[in-house]
């Protein structure tokens, strides 16, 4: 039983961590399509750093730094230059896939290797560090967003930025903070995927988890607790499908592989109504003069 819970948290955490950070970003009005790319780059950076230093904790640090650097690029384009957020994010994804693939082949040979690098050690019986951080972050993020002045201003930056400006805050400064927090979480997500679970790297190893995380934010109605619950639910469906396949029921595997996504769609049919989406999401803010 405990084993099942630990495993659920462990395998749901990459999507969950990324979705938690993305909730902060979207609350401030910035949608990060480049989440997938940031996770991938941090996975690669983490694996290389862990392998060359022998320390997975150093790998974790480098992974987060790599993701934050990409978050700075994203912030520069979408906040400072007011570029289209979807275009900038897509560019980051393509860039990340190309960059990690090229570096991987340059370092480990064009035909690749089955890498095995030092993994982040487990705390106690089966408990992983980053899933625990994920749970802790849920409390902190909820409190910061809904119980502090900073959180109020940040949420207003995603709803009606001129009001934030009028109240004496800078919406773009708040968006910058949100984007960097998103980058931090994407880095932790990529690090957990590569160093917490896999201990290895493969090209495109994130396989769409960044996009699933984006979907989880919508799924969770932009509320950290519900985003957490949504990530757990999809994570549960994912682990369930492997349990079902292992039971040899005889249904085609595509049925099981599609299960988490079918479930997400089904839930969206019921909870998808309403206007929880931040009103200024995706809109660059220009200072009023």
């Amino acid at each position, binding site marked *: 039983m405990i084993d099942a819970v630990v495993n659920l948290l462990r395998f749901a955490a990459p999507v969950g961590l990324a979705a938690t950070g993305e909730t902060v970003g979207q609350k401030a009005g910035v949608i990060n399509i480049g989440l997938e790319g940031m996770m991938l780059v941090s996975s690669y950076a983490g694996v290389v750093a862990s392998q060359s230093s022998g320390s997975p904790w150093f790998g974790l640090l480098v992974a987060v730094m790599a993701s934050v650097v990409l978050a700075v690029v994203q912030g520069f384009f979408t906040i400072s230059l007011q*570029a289209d957020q979807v275009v900038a994010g897509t560019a980051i994804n393509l860039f990340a896939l190309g960059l990690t693939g090229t570096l991987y082949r340059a370092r480990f040979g064009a035909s690749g290797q089955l890498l095995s690098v030092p993994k982040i050690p487990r705390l106690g019986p089966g408990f992983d560090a980053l899933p625990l951080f994920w749970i802790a972050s849920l409390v902190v993020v909820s409190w910061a967003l809904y119980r502090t002045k900073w959180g109020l201003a940040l949420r207003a930056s995603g709803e009606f930025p001129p009001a934030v400006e009028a109240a004496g805050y800078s919406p773009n400064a708040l968006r910058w903070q949100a984007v960097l927090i998103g980058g931090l979480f994407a880095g932790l997500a990529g690090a957990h995927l590569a160093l917490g679970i896999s201990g290895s790297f*493969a090209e495109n190893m994130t396989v769409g988890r960044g996009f699933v995380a984006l979907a989880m934010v919508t799924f969770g109605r932009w509320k950290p607790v519900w985003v957490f619950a949504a990530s757990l639910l999809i994570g549960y469906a994912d682990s369930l499908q492997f349990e079902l396949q292992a039971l040899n029921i005889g249904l085609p595997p595509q049925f099981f592989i599609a299960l988490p996504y079918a479930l997400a769609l089904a839930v969206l049919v019921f909870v998808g109504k309403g206007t929880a989406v931040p009103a200024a999401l995706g809109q660059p803010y220009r200072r009023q003069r």
Partner: protein
Amino acid sequence: MKRQLGFILAAVLFVAGCGPTSPSSSSPDSAKKNGDFKVALLTPGPVSDAGWSALAYRGLQAIEKELGAEVNNQQASDAQIRDAMRSYAQKGYNLVIGHGYEYNAPGIEVAKDFPNTVFVSSSGGETAKNAGAFRFALEQGFYLAGLTAGSMTKSGTVAMIGGPDVPSIASTFKAFRAGATAAKPGIKVIESYTGSNDDIAKANQATLAAIGQGADFVIHQANAAAQGVFDACKEKGVMAFGANFDQNSAAPDTVLASAVIVADPAFVDLAKQVKAGTYTGHVETYDMAKGAIDFVWNPKLADKVPSDVKAKVEAAMADIKSGKLAVPMDKF
């Protein structure tokens, strides 16, 4: 103005990021060789997958080295296949190899328009004057792995973890199942797919689920995600088999043996036929008898294998080579 600058910079990032999927991904120095004989390779996945696509890339490199050919490769699937084949043929490539059954039909179609180029796919059954297929009978290696697993299992349950559910993978799994059942009738064989060749975490998760159902021997067809399978086996203390390459050293205390494709000689052999102008469209099978498929024990775990199991596998191997034992192989 600022907004435009943003778009331009985004476009620059876009172009810069398009690296390894473009045709230029093969080593740049390959273009320096003389252009008499040119060979192109199309793979379904990245050639860095340490598995199926990687072994074709190694084969291409062997062609470059042994025949002094000019080589190029790119990743192409679905609608890109015909385009890639045509553009290579237009550039005067003599041989275009598509590494998978899905390149067979497009090759036949494109071959009509380019009589001076030979199109060969790894597996697939159709042929034309200048198009055909060569098929690696990896099933034979998987059969021996199944035989080993079936003879040694204590729980009576073994597992196969695949990436996508495609005919080539399903066929090898059938052979593994046949081998396991031959050794232990009524054995439970779990067949589980993650849907991806790159998802290490899901390969890990699927393997843990299979071990949770009692599997004590696991074989994979997960290519780049194989380490996820080995890692789960290592964690739970069960045995694994390598596939495609000799992966015995990837997890030296866990991988008992590997079912291996020895691809280089087959690729060079094919290219030689094309270069000499003797190639005619046909389907050729590269199997154990030709030395193209092997089953390699991990020397580090040699003492874990009972001598009667070893003898049984050696005998089956000899029977496969002599043709006495026919391993099931799907046609696709």
